């Protein structure tokens, strides 16, 4: 039996949480359910209430642009995640050496993150444009053979987008990692130094494993960026050249509004949701059992 006072306090807390709970139920779960429902209908401009089975999904996977978008997202995701984590970690280590002007450098590296993806995309669009940016400038300075035309090449355009995104986001990883590094006990460093362990080895074998939570936080934040990547593509390449840098979110938005195809857009959204859940499920499962899973996932 709970003492009355405690019960009252619980009721107050529950009451305070109600608006948030309602938001989650109606605005998130509700709209997700609605989206899944619409994906099984023949909806075009307006939501329809009929039921056409998996027809929208069949059409979706017959659409070349959609399958290309998924491939592009995978390429972008891998490059973006790995590059951001590696560069961010290295930058953090670099700053952790108590370099002179640390405050200034930290600001410089973190600054891109303060910029929106649209601004980032526009800046890099100009820099990478072979007729205006880097290539034209260096050729103008006498480096006639210099070629850097990723943004207009079929096979490289998606990496040009990834380059811009990495530039924008690695500063964030640096900040997270630096916070983690500063939390490492000084005595560990002293012990390692006394034992004559080289600094790189200390970072690799002693410090990095302790940064698990920082890595996990950075990973989650970056992964969310990957799934919803849209604005940087629109600002940089508009999905081009051709379909070379199309991404799923752009496919969904285009079909939702411009192409008046709510059914197909909902099917695509549902596929994205299912994909994210498929990745998320093992992670959630591991977190459920902290006794066995260890502390590394406690992000």
């Amino acid at each position, binding site marked *: 039996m709970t003492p009355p006072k405690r019960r009252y306090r619980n009721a107050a807390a529950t009451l305070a949480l109600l608006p948030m709970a309602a938001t989650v139920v109606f*605005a998130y779960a509700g709209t997700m359910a609605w989206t899944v429902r619409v994906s099984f209908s023949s909806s075009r401009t307006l939501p329809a209430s009929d039921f056409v089975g998996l027809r929208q999904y069949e059409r979706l996977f017959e659409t070349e642009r959609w399958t290309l978008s998924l491939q592009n997202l995978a390429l972008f995701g891998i490059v973006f995640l790995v590059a951001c984590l590696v560069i961010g970690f290295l930058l953090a280590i670099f700053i952790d050496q108590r370099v002179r002007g640390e405050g200034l450098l930290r600001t410089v590296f973190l600054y891109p993150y303060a910029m929106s993806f649209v601004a980032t995309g526009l800046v890099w669009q100009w820099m990478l444009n072979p007729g205006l940016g880097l290539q034209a400038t260096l050729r103008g300075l006498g480096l006639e053979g210099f070629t850097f035309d990723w943004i207009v090449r079929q096979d490289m355009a998606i990496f040009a987008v990834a380059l811009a995104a990495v530039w924008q986001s690695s500063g964030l990883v640096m900040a997270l990692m630096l916070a983690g590094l500063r939390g490492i006990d000084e005595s560990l460093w002293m012990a390692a130094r006394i034992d004559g362990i080289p600094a790189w080895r200390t970072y690799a074998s002693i410090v990095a494993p302790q940064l698990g939570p920082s890595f996990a936080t950075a990973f989650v934040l970056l992964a969310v960026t990957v799934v919803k990547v849209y604005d940087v593509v629109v600002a940089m390449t508009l999905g081009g050249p051709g379909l070379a840098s199309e991404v799923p979110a752009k496919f969904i938005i285009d079909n939702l509004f411009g192409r008046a195809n709510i059914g197909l857009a909902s099917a695509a959204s549902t596929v994205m949701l299912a994909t994210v859940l498929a990745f998320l499920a093992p992670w959630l499962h591991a977190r459920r059992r902290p006794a066995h899973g260890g502390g590394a996932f406690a992000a």
Partner: protein
Amino acid sequence: MTLPTPRLLARFAAAAVLAALVPMHAALAQGPNRAEVIHWWTSGGEAAAVKELADAYKAAGGTWVDTAIAGGEQARATAINRMVGGTPPTAAQFNTSQQFRDLIEGGMLNNVDDVAQKNNWDRILPAPILGAIKIKGHFYAVPVDIHMPAWFWYSKAAFAKAGIKDEPKTPADFLAALDKLKAAGLVPLALGGQPWQEKITFDAWLAHVGGPELYLKLYRDRDVKTVQSPAFKTFLASFKRLKDYVDPGSPGRNWNDATAMVITGKAGVQIMGDWAKGEFQAAHQTAGKEFGCFPGFGPRSPYLVAGDVFVFPKTSDPAQLKSQALLASVFTSPATQVAFNNKKGAIPVRTDVDAAAMDPCAQQGLQIMKDATRQLPNPEMLIAPDVVGALQDIVTKFWNTNESVDDAANAIAAAIKS
């Protein structure tokens, strides 16, 4: 998860909130024949143009409530969401196309048959526009302008430098001119390599080189056999040949940056809608002096017809019905048409107007519109938005990759079949 679907729902929610707010708003802006109009004309020239419509409506005794929303897609989505949410505007802008066909079928629009009959729309409006707005015998939209999405704009300086004396009269002339421009070290064709611009180039080339018949077989009849015929494949190959005349910096370029290449004489020709005129004007260039325009090759060339309309969401409120009828008749009156379209850079939807105040390109367009055999509806009037989108994806892929003509033809056939 920030998947976009909750966003749509958020818009429905926003519409619901608006539903609560609008009556208050209405009380504030009470006046005779109150009309709330949603449109996406927000740039300088466009805003000046829509002011002509508003002034004409006020002069006719109406109260204009302006709801400008930047971006066509956003404006149309807002209009649709408000109709679904039960608080529709008095009128909403769409393109002269099939964008509002689902709304008609869903019974969400009022017709303006009375105004249309009284003003004889059947006689004064061009057939392609009637085809888009008159569905099953009822008039569901009022057209306000005609845009021609595929004019050829050229730099007189570039043509002179390349030794081109006359405007090309045939496709062969045009290709020869492009060769001369290339030999003179200029960019022959200024193209912004974005899917919609590539699609405009494709449509123009199809209408002028493939010919109106092939064009209509694809877009009106959706004829799979034609698409896989040698004639169509020859056209596809000749379209791809244009790529030799485009500079490597083309992919992703904005249309106005491509226009700037023509303005500065770095490039010879751009294929773009008549809205490009605004860029030339802003650079203090005049048609016929620094730049020239032609709508196609030779005196019988087809003229693509596109444009803007307003639709009238369903309502049974007699005051709103009256406002809708008044809007429809004001928008199409000859004086409003000329005043509006001069600022808009388009041409009036009717040819019985005074053309004296228009620029040479617009006058040429108006003259051509008098010959019904030269009018060709743009693809958006003939096929649904999602098929237009699918074709755009196919064209941009064909243009930018080494995809074979056969594969592209098959892809087009599959897209128009579905």
